[in-house]
């Protein structure tokens, strides 16, 4: 039995933002796999909940004629892992989705909840960072769209304003068309685990042997998911070789702010950043149609 004092359900976004405006202390719940677990663990003591579960308009994955992919915030990880739009266009996100939790959790957990929970290990985040995703946020007054990088503020802290909900995750065609991508989740177990490190890489090539650009998103390499800008800058229009890939991976570490915890040491995490970025790059290059690297 959870200590839930108030419980509201909205069936439209408009209703949801109105309820949130009227009851500012409400906590938004979607799949429940984070909120309820926090309640169980005593991190949230008493709660008034606003459930978005009946907001049907947020359950869709769509690709518009101009190629914009929009993912409703209530889309579950099972949906993400199986959806042809995601699998065909942004496979790194499909891979990340399949790596999350176990099947029952994926059946419940939503991408919106995963992001709004704001933890550095959010499985969907590294891929969305690498894809330069945008988030549509809405409150009673209207809506705004922000880059995902501006959404994560710190561990468990996101840029949702009072009364605001996340409605959509957007990925623009210029950020995935022609890109190859790959996601590696490094965790202690192959299922039912949180990432020790998550690495998402997307890259676009000028030709088989030359990068156009590379984008690298990391999870659990700092207080928020992050991008490796310096490494990306280095990679721009570089000739692809084992050496370049190793150098990119080496520079990627500079963007991290890993800490030692009982889960893993800083040194080990940094070592993993380098090793796994290199491994993810290799596969992403292959998927982008590039030369094979050994």
């Amino acid at each position, binding site marked *: *039995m*959870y200590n*839930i004092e108030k419980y509201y359900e909205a069936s439209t976004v408009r209703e949801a933002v109105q309820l949130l405006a009227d009851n500012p202390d409400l906590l938004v719940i979607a799949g*429940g796999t984070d909120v309820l677990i926090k309640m169980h*663990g005593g991190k949230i003591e008493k709660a008034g909940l606003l459930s978005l*579960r009946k907001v049907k308009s947020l359950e869709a994955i769509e690709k518009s004629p101009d190629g914009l992919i929009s993912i409703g915030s209530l889309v579950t990880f099972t949906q993400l892992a199986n959806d042809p739009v995601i699998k065909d266009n942004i496979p790194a996100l499909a891979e990340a989705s399949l790596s999350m939790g176990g*099947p029952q*959790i994926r*059946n419940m957990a939503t991408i919106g909840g995963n992001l709004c929970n704001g933890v550095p290990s959010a499985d969907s985040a590294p891929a969305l960072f690498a894809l330069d995703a945008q988030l549509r946020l809405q409150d009673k007054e209207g809506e705004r769209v922000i880059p995902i990088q501006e959404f994560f503020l710190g561990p468990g802290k996101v840029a949702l304003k009072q009364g605001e909900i996340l409605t959509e995750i957007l990925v623009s065609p210029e950020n995935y068309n022609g890109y190859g991508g790959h996601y590696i989740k490094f965790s202690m177990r192959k299922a*039912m685990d949180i990432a020790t490190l998550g690495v998402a890489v997307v890259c676009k090539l000028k030709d088989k042997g030359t990068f156009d650009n590379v984008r690298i998103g990391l999870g659990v390499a700092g207080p928020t998911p992050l991008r490796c800008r310096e490494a990306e800058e280095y990679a721009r229009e570089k000739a692809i070789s084992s050496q370049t890939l190793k150098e990119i991976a080496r520079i990627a570490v500079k963007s991290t702010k890993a800490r030692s915890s009982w889960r893993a040491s800083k040194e080990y995490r940094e070592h993993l950043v380098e090793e796994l970025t290199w491994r993810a790059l290799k596969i992403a290059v292959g998927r982008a149609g590039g030369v094979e690297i050994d």
Partner: protein
Amino acid sequence: MTKKIAFEVNGKKVELEVQPGETLLEVLRYRLHYTGVKKGCAVGECGACTVLIDGTPTNSCIYLAVWADGKEIRTIEGVAKDGELSKVQKSFVEEGAIQCGFCTPGFVLTATAMVESGKKYSREEIKRELSGHLCRCTGYQKIIKAVEKSLQD
């Protein structure tokens, strides 16, 4: 504050007043006495409480009872029909996939959903589909065999 909900459990219509903090697990076990739904961790980490909600394997411990309104729920008690074990149940029995039995209902329900999906699964895919269930007795070996057997035509 309570809320009235109506849903089906194993084909039977149920109407109940529930509190918003009640989980589906608690309602099924303690109010409707479907005790085949097991509680192992209360946070979705072990899969013992798995039930099928509209055919989808779901951890009932982190599923609020209010969400069950209008849903069709299947528990282990609803798997055998007219006293006849289902194909999945028979396979678990014959393959010796059962030891302490506490994880068994959850595994059987996920396997049932797999069989009913009509999909084909490789061994790796079977393992992935079952990976939300922990078992400490069997090392999963005979469970995999039982599910493979259930999936054979």
